[in-house]
């Protein structure tokens, strides 16, 4: 137990900070994923075949390639790509992006592919009559989406989004290969310096279980809230 003490003697405070980092990366990645989904879901549902194709390539490639490979692409290629864009604007210095940004972006793109599929499924399973009714009543496009489609979509999407959240949370463990100090990386460091990998990796597993358990409780509450009236 003294291994988990807070302060200089134990790893308690380090692991606590690492847990907060895991939560921060997961939430950032999830939000980045939502913004990708906001772009690609309309493309998937569009009438134009070429737009469908773009969105399908995105979701198929990301869901068919290992997460680790995507992370390596961003880890090794991220700063190169940014420097290339910067050089177009005449900036030629070396740019290093930090591990948090690379990591949440890589996981965000993966999470976005899953979210896109969830939102597409949710919108498609809304009764067609709802769209028609909104049109007949003369709602503007904007109002139709925010007042009629979105609330119904959220109710249908939340159970599946909770799966996406779980996947995203577990995927953040892979960012440890880039050196970002989250739960996995911190356990690796602690295991290395105390020569007690069994204890620290088991403790990491418990931390992840705790995070998934608590987030499921929270999401269940949201589910109840959004299915009021049904």
């Amino acid at each position, binding site marked *: 137990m003294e291994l988990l003490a807070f302060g200089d003697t134990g790893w308690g405070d380090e692991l606590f900070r690492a847990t907060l980092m895991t939560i921060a990366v997961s939430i950032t990645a999830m939000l980045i994923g939502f913004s990708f989904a906001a772009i690609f879901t309309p493309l998937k549902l569009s009438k134009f075949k070429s737009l469908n194709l773009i969105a399908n390539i995105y979701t*198929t*490639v990301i*869901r*068919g*390639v*290992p*997460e*680790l*490979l995507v992370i*390596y*692409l961003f880890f*090794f*290629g991220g700063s*190169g790509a940014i420097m290339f864009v910067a050089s177009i604007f005449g900036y030629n210095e070396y740019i290093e992006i930090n591990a948090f940004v690379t990591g949440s972006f890589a996981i965000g793109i993966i999470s976005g592919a899953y979210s896109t599929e969830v939102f597409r499924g949710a919108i498609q399973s809304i009764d067609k009559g709802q769209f028609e009714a909104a049109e007949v009543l003369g709602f503007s496009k904007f109002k139709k989406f925010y007042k009629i489609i979105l609330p119904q979509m959220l109710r249908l999407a939340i159970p599946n989004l909770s799966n996406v959240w*779980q996947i995203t949370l*577990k*995927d953040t*463990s*892979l960012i*440890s*290969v880039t050196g970002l100090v989250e739960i*996995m990386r911190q*356990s*690796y460091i602690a*295991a290395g310096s105390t*020569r*007690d*990998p*069994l204890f620290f*990796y*088991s403790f*990491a*597993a418990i931390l*992840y*279980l705790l995070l*998934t*358990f608590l987030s499921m409780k929270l999401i269940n509450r949201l589910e109840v809230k959004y299915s009021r009236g049904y």
Partner: protein
Amino acid sequence: MDFELMINSFPKLIGATVITLKLLSVSLIVGLFIGLLFAILRLNKNVFINRFAYGYSYVFRGTPLLVQIFIIYFGLGQIEYLRSTILWVILKEPYWCAIIAFALNTGAYTSEILRSAFQTIKPGIIEAGKSLGISNKIIFYKIQIPIAIRQSLPAYGNEIILMMKGTSLASTVTLMDLTGVAKYIISTTFKPIEVFIVAGGIYLFMTFIIHNVIKFLEKRYSY
């Protein structure tokens, strides 16, 4: 775009794909047995037994695969007693450690898939078997299992694809699978995009094959 690198790295990556496929197939076969065993335990009426089976699948589905591999590869080696047993022959090899982790992980997901498949079998079918005087054992093997397999094919197909992506984690315990070799080439040439296209293409091709095989099986076993 460095096409020469892409062409040169292709044979190396294909060679590594063999390891990926070995890891995948062995862990899927072992995982299927584990999954079937735990699915049956989950349906047991004894509270302790089905709680135990539920706990197993909850823990393995609630923690990242990376943690599971690290516990087995780095963690178990720490137990002095294990080092003196015959198990150590297996546990000192990263290859077998990875397979144990993958099999236990996919076993947990498979048990959930099979359990829900068993539970959706209509009771009428089992009753029909009983009224025809067929023994419970034969009902289970000849009626319940074939129906459950058909029911769980789409979900199991997804699980195979997820597991194929999961085998990439073997590269974190020094194995040179497809991702491991891809990472090695990237870190020596600093050409991430080219290598990603080739390695990603191979993964996508495998996904495509698995997807279509499952689709074909679904059609064949549909009723």
